[in-house]
């Protein structure tokens, strides 16, 4: 059992190393997440579930995620990421049906809103999580960054550009 106690000593030493290394980080991770707080209230938890612009662009290119635009229907119709579904945060129940029909609960879902400090995407993520869609991410910079970007976009009220017009198409 000698190697067992040595392995336990290694595990304990690992915990000490992890504590020191984490404390030395510019923004240490909290060891225990406060799961009673909402995603919006817990900045550390929210930061954990964000995607970068490059990750988002990669998923859009490879069709490896579903996209949800959490802004109002008017703003969505004026321009959105190509293929994105519209689920306005103040009308989630009436708009979410299309998600339940077309998106698998296991699929990665990336949600965006206006950008900056908008909370719409957080509300939609909480709603999705409560509905069984737990593989969700937030693109915090939102339309503020996506709008001027080179990513493919569409206009109109339907997803996948079926009735909208792709801005990249001739």
């Amino acid at each position, binding site marked *: 059992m*000698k*190697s*067992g106690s*040595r*392995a336990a*000593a*290694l*595990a304990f*030493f*690992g*915990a000490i*190393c*992890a504590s020191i*290394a*984490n404390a030395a*980080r510019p923004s240490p*991770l*909290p*060891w*225990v*997440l*406060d*799961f009673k707080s909402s995603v919006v209230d817990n900045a*550390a*938890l929210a*930061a*954990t*579930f964000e995607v970068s612009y*490059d*990750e988002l662009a*990669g998923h859009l290119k490879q069709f490896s995620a579903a996209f949800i635009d959490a802004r109002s229907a008017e703003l969505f119709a004026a321009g959105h990421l190509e293929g994105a579904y519209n689920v306005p945060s103040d009308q989630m129940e009436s708009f979410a049906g299309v998600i339940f029909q077309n998106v698998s609960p*296991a*699929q990665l879902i990336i949600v965006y809103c206006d950008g900056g400090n908008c909370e719409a995407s957080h509300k939609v993520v909480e709603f999705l999580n409560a509905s069984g869609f*737990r*593989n969700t991410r937030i693109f915090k910079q939102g339309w503020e960054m996506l709008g001027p970007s080179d990513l493919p976009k569409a206009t109109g009220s339907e997803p996948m550009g079926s009735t909208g017009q792709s801005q990249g198409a001739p």
Partner: protein
Amino acid sequence: MTIEHHGAAKRALTALLCAGLAAVFVYAGALKILDPRGFVNDLRNYRLFPWWSLNAVALLVPWWEVLAGVALFTPRWRRAGAMMTGLMGVSFFLSVSQALLRGLDIHCGCFGHGEKAAQAGLKTLAIDVAVVAASWYVWRHSPAAAQRPAAFDESAAAALNSA
């Protein structure tokens, strides 16, 4: 093959497996230590751990990987390192298996995080099985500390003297 040759082959294979396991675990652990938030994301996708524990797991496991890998290079700690890599290999295998059985299409999170990260699949399971097998071999064929001469046991010596 003579007994000496057989022993030398075993020692060479043990050393080779130690080096391979150590390289894999130190590399994998170092990548996760450098990007703990990415590893939290990967762990979350497995839907195996409660939310409150994700950060703790993401902070601890990479250091256990690195230390187990380093221990494999040290004869005195080799069996402990092999025990840790074996146990981690079993837990990785079980984690990936449950993800596959539940139909989760996720990155394995084994060697870093991001677009180029490997998907959790049968290849990941095969790697985990190889890790467990190699760990078992190293553990089995490394000399245990308990095999050192019993003459150093002072209480046993005292008992013999008093008899």
